[in-house]
């Protein structure tokens, strides 16, 4: 009944979503060309605004950081602008469905729009492999599901369809064999798999753990294999894309272990966690936004959908600003620092490290300014992508928290990490912090908090948070594994910084809420700068120099403190 109260249809919000998406289409796709309208660059010129680093020189559209990942591996792919149009159309279609359909069809309709968009962007084989992989996960997690026969049939059909792609048989024969494959798997599941999962519950638990750890295990295993035998293993795109959801699979597993997931969760409710048009864009950027079942189910239609929608639209409008002006502002700061202050700033930390390794002199202001500038760029680019994603979730009725929440307001590292990467922090807290905290040093309060925080923010953050990321995005090669492992000082500094801050806060107690008006606001400003600068500076260690060592990174890091060794 309460959900019905939150489900009042209004015309104005629908119109607002349409207009905002139309603006996206105008700026980032070929719509202006098709409609005979002036391109965004021409419009900007007419308004006497001719910035660098904003428009695509080839078509005059805005050169967007919003793109669809890995489509270059698909034959006959669309260009980036067309792909974005497919994305925006799918989001609008999903929005209309979820807004107007009866409650029981809402989440399922979003899944349908995701699959349609996926089919256009990644084609049938990748889509089949991706959905079939999720069906494997569903089978392992939900042996008691009442929709298991449908899920088994779908898995058998899709797996057979992918398997038969290499053959030269006609389409009708392929369809018949795929249907036969579906029927066979229904029987295999009914006779063997389902009874096995229900009877051998400990083995089933281990299998579930194994399946959510596969991205890390496969990534590291394949990299070691490549190091020893010089043979690179490549995953098919459908598998790669589900592996890319490893954070969310791990959180889903944690939800499951915590009994926060119904054992007979319907298939489309499961799909709705992982398959929504909100996650299609920039697959490789912050793929953990949205977390998993426990988080999303509590936030779906938990308030008036028009309120949630409006907050999503506000984010989308902020995204427009980030996407259009982000690169222009960053390069503007570089130019202004050079011309007004004679300070050289680098928009990328890697460029600064490379110049330092090549013997270029490096000043303290350059190191301090460049590391902050790089994080500002991360905030603008990743902020745009994640705000767009969160905005889409909100337009679909989920009151999802933003990934970035004014991190410059944080006056200590503990708060900073929450404000800078909310969903990632929740992943680390759920998967590492809670289990360590609840298991070890129960009688030693300070040690308990310190160890749990350090393990979560250094080991968990490094190995589970970032190793699969590097393996999946750059290739499962030994050099990539070595490269990410060499970044250990960054994770150690971050972990120590957060853990010691946590202990300080615990022992010292807090005397006031930050930014409470008064003379001590000055102290808040100093603390906010020190926190931000420390976080930015330690990113020097996150980019180990080619041909250098951690000592070189340390020397550059110390230049930030005015120490030249």
């Amino acid at each position, binding site marked *: 009944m309460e959900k019905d109260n939150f489900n009042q249809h209004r015309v104005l919000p629908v119109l607002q979503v349409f207009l905002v998406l139309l603006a996206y289409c105008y700026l980032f796709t070929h719509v202006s060309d098709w409609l005979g309208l002036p391109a965004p660059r021409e419009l900007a010129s007419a308004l006497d605004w001719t910035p660098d680093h904003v428009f695509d020189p080839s078509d005059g559209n805005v050169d967007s950081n919003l793109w669809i990942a890995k489509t270059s591996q698909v034959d006959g792919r669309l260009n980036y602008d067309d792909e974005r149009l497919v994305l925006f159309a799918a989001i609008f279609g999903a929005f209309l469905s979820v807004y107007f359909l009866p409650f029981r069809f809402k989440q399922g309709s979003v899944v349908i729009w995701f699959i349609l968009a996926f089919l256009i962007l990644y084609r049938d084989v990748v889509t089949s492999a991706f959905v079939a992989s999720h069906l494997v996960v569903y089978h392992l997690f939900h042996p008691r599901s009442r929709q298991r026969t449908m899920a088994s049939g779908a898995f058998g059909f899709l797996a057979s369809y992918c398997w038969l792609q290499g053959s030269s048989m006609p389409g009708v024969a392929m369809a018949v064999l795929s249907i036969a494959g579906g029927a066979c798997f229904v029987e295999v599941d009914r006779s063997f798999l389902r009874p096995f999962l229900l009877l051998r519950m400990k083995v089933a638990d281990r299998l579930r753990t194994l399946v959510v750890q596969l991205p890390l295990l496969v990534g590291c295993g394949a990299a070691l294999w490549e190091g020893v035998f010089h043979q690179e293993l490549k995953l098919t795109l459908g598998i790669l894309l589900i592996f890319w959801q490893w954070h969310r699979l791990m959180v889903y597993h*944690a939800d499951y*272990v*915590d*009994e*926060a997931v119904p054992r007979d969760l319907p298939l489309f409710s499961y799909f709705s966690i992982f398959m929504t048009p909100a996650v299609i864009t920039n697959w490789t950027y912050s793929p953990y936004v949205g977390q998993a079942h*426990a988080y999303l189910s*509590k936030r779906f239609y938990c308030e008036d959908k028009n309120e949630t929608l409006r907050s999503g639209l506000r984010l989308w409008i902020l995204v427009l600003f980030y996407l259009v002006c982000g690169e222009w502002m960053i390069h503007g700061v570089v130019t202004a620092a050079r011309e007004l202050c004679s300070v050289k700033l680098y928009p990328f930390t890697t460029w600064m490290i490379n110049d330092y390794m090549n013997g270029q002199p490096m000043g303290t202001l350059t190191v301090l300014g460049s590391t902050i500038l790089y994080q500002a760029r991360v905030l603008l680019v990743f902020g745009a992508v994640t705000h767009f994603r969160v905005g889409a979730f909100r337009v679909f009725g989920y009151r999802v928290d933003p990934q970035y929440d004014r991190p410059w307001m944080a006056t200590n590292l*503990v708060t900073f990490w*929450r404000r800078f990467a909310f969903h990632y*922090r*929740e992943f680390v*807290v759920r998967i590492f*912090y*809670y*289990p360590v*905290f*609840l298991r070890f040093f*129960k009688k030693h*309060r300070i040690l*308990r*908090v310190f160890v*749990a*925080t350090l393990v979560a923010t250094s080991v968990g953050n490094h190995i589970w948070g970032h190793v699969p990321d590097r393996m999946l995005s750059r290739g499962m090669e030994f050099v990539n594994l070595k490269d990410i492992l060499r970044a250990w000082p960054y994770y150690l500094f971050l972990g120590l910084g957060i853990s010691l801050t*946590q202990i300080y806060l*615990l022992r010292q*107690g*807090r*005397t*006031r*809420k930050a930014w*409470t008006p008064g003379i001590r606001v000055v102290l808040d400003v100093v603390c906010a700068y020190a926190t931000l600068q420390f976080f930015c500076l330690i990113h020097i260690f996150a980019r180990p120099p080619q041909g250098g060592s951690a000592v070189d990174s340390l020397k550059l890091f110390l230049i930030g403190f005015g120490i030249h060794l």
Partner: protein
Amino acid sequence: MPDRDHIHACLRKHLVTTYPHEGAELLDTTDLFQEWFVDSMGVLLLVTFLEETFDVTVRRGDIVEENFRSIESIANYVIRRGPGAGCS
């Protein structure tokens, strides 16, 4: 089993000491996440307090917003979870 009022008083004393908030009043229904700047890490400090003070064993699955949203919901949780001594 400590009575509800006693649990409320202990929790209020702990929260006001650990998270002082000048000029704001901590009610039984105050949203700790939205209005008293407790976050998911801060929740674990509350867990420590509950374990030490009320002798409850908190499971990972119990650490959810519903159980820790306000003094009232924490007290409900403590009463549900079982025996305890109480603070002085």
